[in-house]
C-alpha cells in the first residue's frame, strides 16, 4: 500500500469520529500549549533580564570586593558601609591604583567605587538613593553606553560640588515632573552611624548631568536610581578611604583572560578578596534559567503524558471497534506491517494537529500573559532591582522550542499508539472477521 493511501485511509478513520478525535487532540493541544507558553515566557524573561544586565554590564570588567559572591557590587540596592568582611580586611582607594598594567598586562585600568545609602533633598522632597563616588573619566570610559548624559554633560575634571544623577532620581514619578534637572541645587545627606548619637551629614551640590535611562541593573555599572559624585569628594564626605568595590577593565573579555587576571588579583590580595566577572554572572544566570525552563517544561510534559494515555485509551477502544475492519483489510491482503502503519499514522495525524494547534495557542497564551504583566506594571523584577521601572516580557518562540514541541507532540502520540497499533497488526484474520 502506498504511503499516501495509508495516510488517507487513516485520515478517513479519524474523520469518522470527529468528536472523539477532537477530544483526544485537545489533550495534546493542552500539553503542547502549556510547554510552549511556559518556555516562551521564560525565554522572554531570560532575554529581558539578560539584556537589562548587559546594559549595566561591561563584559570586559572584573569586580573586586572583600565580600563573597557578587552581593557587594550587585545592583544599586547594595547598602553602603557594609563592606567590612569578617577578617577585618579592607580595600582602600590606593589598592585600586595597585591593580594596573604592571600586575597583569591584560589590565587596562582600574577604579575604586565607594558607595553608601543616603538621601537627596530638594525643597521639602526627600528621596532615598545610593551615593556613589567614582572617577567620572574612568567610569565613563568603562561604561560608555550607560554612564552617558541625557542632558547636561559629565565633567572630566569635576569640581567637588558637581553631581551626576540617574534618570529615576531626576524623574522619580516617570511622568516628566522633574525632581532634579541640570543646574538644580541638590542637598546630599547620609547618616553617619560611627558617631553617637548618629548624625546626618550634609553638603550641597548641583546637578551637572542627568544620565540616560538605563532600565536595567548592573554589576558595578551605573543605575537609574543612583547619584554620582567625584571620588575625592566622597572620601572626604564619608571620611573614609575604604572602597566597596574596585572595577577592573580588561583588554579583552575571553574566558582565559578573565580567569588568569582574576587569579592574579586574588593572589595579590592573599585570597582576601573576591573577584567576580560580569560574564561569569551572565553565564550563571543563563544556567539558572536553563534549570527553571527544564523544570517548567517537565511539569508541562506531565500534562502531555496524560494526553498520551488518553490517546492509548482511545486507540484501544478504536481497535476493538474496528477488529472486524482489520479482519477485512487482512483478508484483502493487507500486511500486518501496513495495519501497524495505519494505526500509527492516525496517531501521527492527531499528534501533528494537536501540536500545531498547541504551539499556536501556547504562543497566544504567552503573549496574553506578557500583556497582563505589562498592564499590571510588571514590577516583580523591578522591585528586586530597586528600580521603579517595570520590565516588559516579550515571549520568545525559538526554532528549537517550536520544532521540539512539534516533535514531542507527535512523539508522545506515536509512543502511546505503539501498543494498540501492534495489537491491531497481530490480529488473526479469521478471528478478527468472526468478531462481532
Amino acid at each position: 500500500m502506498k504511503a499516501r493511501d495509508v495516510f488517507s485511509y487513516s485520515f478517513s478513520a479519524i474523520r469518522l469520529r470527529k468528536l472523539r478525535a477532537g477530544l483526544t487532540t485537545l489533550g495534546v493541544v493542552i500539553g503542547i500549549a502549556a510547554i510552549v507558553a511556559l518556555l516562551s515566557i521564560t525565554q522572554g524573561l531570560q532575554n529581558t533580564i539578560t539584556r537589562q544586565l548587559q546594559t549595566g554590564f561591561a563584559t570586559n570588567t572584573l569586580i573586586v570586593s572583600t565580600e563573597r559572591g557578587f552581593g557587594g557590587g550587585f545592583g544599586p540596592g547594595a547598602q553602603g558601609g557594609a563592606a567590612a568582611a569578617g577578617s577585618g580586611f579592607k580595600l582602600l582607594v590606593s589598592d585600586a591604583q595597585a591593580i594596573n598594567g604592571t600586575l597583569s598586562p591584560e589590565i587596562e585600568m582600574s577604579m575604586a567605587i565607594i558607595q553608601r545609602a543616603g538621601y537627596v533633598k530638594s525643597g521639602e522632597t526627600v528621596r532615598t538613593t545610593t551615593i556613589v563616588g567614582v572617577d567620572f573619566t574612568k567610569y565613563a570610559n568603562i561604561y560608555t553606553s550607560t554612564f552617558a548624559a541625557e542632558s547636561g554633560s559629565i565633567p572630566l575634571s569635576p569640581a567637588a560640588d558637581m553631581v551626576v544623577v540617574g534618570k529615576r532620581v531626576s524623574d522619580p514619578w516617570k511622568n516628566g515632573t522633574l525632581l532634579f534637572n541640570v543646574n538644580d541645587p541638590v542637598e546630599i545627606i547620609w547618616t553617619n552611624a560611627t558617631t553617637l548619637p548618629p548624625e546626618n551629614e550634609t553638603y550641597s551640590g548641583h546637578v551637572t548631568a542627568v544620565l540616560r535611562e538605563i532600565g536595567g541593573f548592573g554589576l558595578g555599572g551605573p543605575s537609574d536610581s543612583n547619584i554620582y559624585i567625584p571620588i575625592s569628594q566622597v572620601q572626604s564626605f564619608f571620611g573614609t578611604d575604604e572602597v566597596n568595590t574596585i572595577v577592573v577593565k580588561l583588554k579583552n573579555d575571553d574566558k582565559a583572560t578573565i580567569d588568569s587576571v582574576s587569579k592574579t588579583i586574588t593572589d595579590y590580595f592573599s585570597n582576601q578578596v573576591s573577584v567576580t566577572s560580569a560574564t561569569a554572572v551572565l553565564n550563571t544566570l543563563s544556567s539558572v534559567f536553563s534549570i527553571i525552563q527544564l523544570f517548567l517544561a517537565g511539569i508541562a510534559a506531565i500534562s502531555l503524558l496524560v494526553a498520551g494515555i488518553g490517546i492509548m485509551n482511545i486507540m484501544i477502544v478504536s481497535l476493538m471497534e474496528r477488529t472486524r475492519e482489520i479482519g477485512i483489510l487482512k483478508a484483502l491482503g493487507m500486511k500486518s506491517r501496513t495495519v501497524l502503519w495505519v494505526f500509527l499514522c492516525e496517531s501521527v495525524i492527531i499528534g501533528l494537529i494537536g501540536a500545531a494547534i498547541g504551539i499556536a495557542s501556547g504562543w497566544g497564551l504567552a503573549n496574553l500573559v506578557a500583556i497582563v504583566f505589562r498592564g499590571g506594571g510588571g514590577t516583580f523584577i523591578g522591585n528586586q532591582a530597586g528600580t521603579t521601572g517595570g520590565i516588559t516580557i516579550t515571549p520568545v518562540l525559538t526554532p528549537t522550542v517550536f520544532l521540539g514541541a512539534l516533535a514531542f507532540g507527535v512523539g508522545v502520540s506515536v509512543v502511546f499508539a505503539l501498543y494498540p497499533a501492534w495489537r491491531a497488526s497481530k490480529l488473526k484474520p479469521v478471528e478478527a472477521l468472526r468478531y462481532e
Partner: protein
Amino acid sequence: MTTIVEAVNLKKTYMLGKVPVDALRGINLRVESGDFLAILGPSGSGKSTLLNLIGALDKPTEGNILIEDVDVSMLGDSQLADLRRRIGFVFQFFNLIPRFTARENVELSMSIAGMSRAERRKHAEDLLETVGLKERMNHKPSELSGGEQQRVAIARALANNPRFLLMDEPTGNIDSRTATEVIGLTKKLNEEKGATIIMVTHDQHLAAETKRTVQMFDGLIIKEIVN
C-alpha cells in the same frame, strides 16, 4: 487445465476452551481452473473452516493445502498477505467498509495491492459496471440494498484479477430474488470470463447451479456430485 487449489489429507483442530474440536478430519480436494465448485453441508460440518484454509486466512493443523502448487503452511505472514491479494473473497455479511462509498470499497483492495489512484479509479468503475452498479457507485453501503452490497463485494473480490473467487454463503443474507441475481452474475463470471469459483453454501438449489458439488459432514467430504 491447471490445478488451482489442492488439499491433501487436510486436518484442522480447534481448541474450544480446553476441549479440542476436530473441525476437519482429512479432506482431499482438487480444484481446476475454470471450475465452479459448491461446498455443501450443514452448519458445523467444517465447510467454513475449509474455506478459511483455502483462502489462506488460517493454517492447517495437519496435511497440506496447495494454492497454485505453493504450500500455504510454508508461508510467512507477509507472504500470506501477498497470496490473499490473488484470492477474491465474498463474505456472507458483505464486509464492506461502512464509511467508504461503493467505488472506494472496490478501490480499497487495489489500494492495498499498491495500484495507483487514477488506475484503480478507472478499474473500479469498470468493475461496478460489470456488476451493474455504475449508477450507485457513489453510495455508501448503508444506502445500498443487501443485493447491491453483495454485488459491490463481488466487484471488490474481482479487483485484483484473482486466481479464484471464494464465496462464503453469498446469498445467506439477501432475499431470494436478489439471490437469483447474484447467482446469475456469478454464473456469468464463470461461464463468460472463465473465473474459478469456490462457494460454500447450505442451499441445495444454489449448489445445483454450479458445475460440481462436494457434500461435507462432520469434517469430512462424504459425497461429490458433478452437475
